[in-house]
């Protein structure tokens, strides 16, 4: 009898814990929506900030974050996809392959602030890019490379072996087989991973803090060698560095909401995309 009771207690306990996590996630999202939504209007999204961010909009931060995300993916996507193709289609078990895999796992575990130090040392100072969009994009690209490689490789491995064998048996070369008979079926899966990578790049603060982000810069960037503002850093500045933190609280909520909507929106697209692919291709 006592044993049965304690079983029920434990089952209830872990159920309560699970829903407590759910409750916290929901309250983060609701709190930010509730306080941020009334502040957001057309002007907030399309105007320059005024008086050190105390008034006006956040257009340069939005443009900054979008250009960083786009630039990052342009650099990381080809590199990541090519690495995944090599690992899944060409690599033989051996020391080189093992080293590449170890490198990918290591990269995935490096703290984002250390990527920032690396970007500062290599791109900003050694290559003399200065604090700029290009330095930020290169740094973020190194950071999301493992995400793109791992998910692209998974997408390639999901294509059945028979697709390759059939093509090879008809006399196609290895690359022809990959290009015509493997990539078309895995490209959407590879893109899903990259979308998740974009979300990560758009939300990161620590690396861009050291390589690109401007504290307050009320104009749009003209070239990739310009500094920009970025949404996550702008939120950090408003919430901790602003001279009157309580007064700009509404702007903090609104900035957090725009950032959250952007990142979760990107992730949602990836999830829907994945569901779509799973329905389309069944072997």
């Amino acid at each position, binding site marked *: 009898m006592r*044993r049965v009771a304690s*079983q029920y207690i*434990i*089952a209830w306990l*872990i159920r309560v*814990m*699970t829903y*407590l*996590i*759910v409750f916290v*996630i929901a309250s*983060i999202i609701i*709190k930010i929506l509730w306080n941020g939504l009334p502040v957001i209007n057309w002007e907030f999204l399309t105007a320059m900030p005024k008086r050190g961010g105390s008034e006006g909009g956040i257009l340069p931060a939005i443009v900054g974050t979008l250009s960083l995300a786009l630039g990052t993916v342009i650099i990381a996507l*080809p590199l990541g996809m*090519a*690495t995944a193709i*090599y*690992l899944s289609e*060409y*690599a033989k078990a051996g020391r080189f392959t093992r080293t*590449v895999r170890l*490198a*990918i796992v*290591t*990269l*995935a*575990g*490096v*703290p*984002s*602030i*250390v990527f*920032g*130090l*690396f970007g*500062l*040392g*290599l791109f900003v100072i050694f290559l003399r890019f200065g604090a700029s969009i290009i330095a930020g994009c290169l740094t973020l690209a*190194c950071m999301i*490379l493992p995400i793109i490689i791992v998910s692209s490789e998974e997408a390639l491995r999901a294509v059945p072996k028979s697709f390759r064998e059939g093509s090879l048996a008809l006399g196609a*070369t290895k*690359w022809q087989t990959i290009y015509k008979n493997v990539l078309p079926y895995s490209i959407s899966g590879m893109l899903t991973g990259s979308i998740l990578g974009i*979300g990560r790049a758009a*939300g990161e*603060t620590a690396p861009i*803090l*050291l390589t690109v982000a401007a504290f307050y810069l009320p104009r749009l960037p003209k070239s990739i060698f310009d500094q920009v503002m970025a949404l*996550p*850093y702008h*939120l*950090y500045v408003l*919430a*901790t560095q602003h001279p009157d933190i309580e007064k700009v*609280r509404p702007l*903090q909520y609104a900035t*957090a909401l725009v*950032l*959250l909507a952007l*990142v979760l929106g990107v*992730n949602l697209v990836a999830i829907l995309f994945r569901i779509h692919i799973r329905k389309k291709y069944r072997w």
Partner: protein
Amino acid sequence: MKAAWKEKAIRLMLLATASTSILIVIGIFVFVGKEAGQFAIKPGLKELISSRWMPVSFQKESFGLLPLITGSLLVTALATILTIPFGIGAAVYISELARPTEREILKPFIEILAGIPSVVIGFFGLVVLVPLIKSSFGLWTGLTALAGAVLLALMAIPTVVSISEDAIRSVPASYKAASLALGASKMQTIWKVTVPAALPGIVAAIMLGIGRVIGETMAVMMVTGNAAIITASPFDSVRTMTATIAAEMGEVAFGSIHYRALFCVGIVLLLATFGLNIIAQKFLKKYRMG
């Protein structure tokens, strides 16, 4: 003939791109290590073993890493204590006890948490958690190690839940069937058979979660108060290694001793996460083979 040449070229090109990951890892160690190495030459590594981090001072600057390391350790340890029961509890609930539709909703919902940017979590901590801690424990500030730990636990939980749940679900059904057939109850089967069988995967999940916790910067910097003191109390302000780099890098002169000291902090962080990662991979391999 031409086709064969092309095939070779493509192969070589892909091989070259695959090496970029290796180059980046080497580059990270070289460029972070280079500045740290300069610090080792002058003023020397002995400078780092001190309990005072006071990089800007009129009398004598001091670059002791001990308060930063203990700060990171305290926050990480507290976060781990919070993460383990919640992470494993939720993973067991989702994989073993939840109804199928409930599971389909719960897992993606918890994974949303992994997508929320750390600066947004830090902001939430600042406006909700910090005042809550201040009032419920009667402190003069809520900017404490505890606040940092709770936020970090929130960020580690989705990783732990997701990987542990996969591990628990990949335990063969025959194990459970055998246990139930011997008369064990459902809960006995879960705790005595299923969870132990999935243990390597769960341990790996926790290690990866801790790796994320040690390396996390923004949320911690916003809520821990950033006082460089050595303490074991969750109700004190602490300054972590990551927050030190992020907060001070903007104000130092390139090439100064302070600048190089921050790279020393970076190398300590890098080695710590690298070590954790290697151990986690060992455990992951074990569960994938077993």
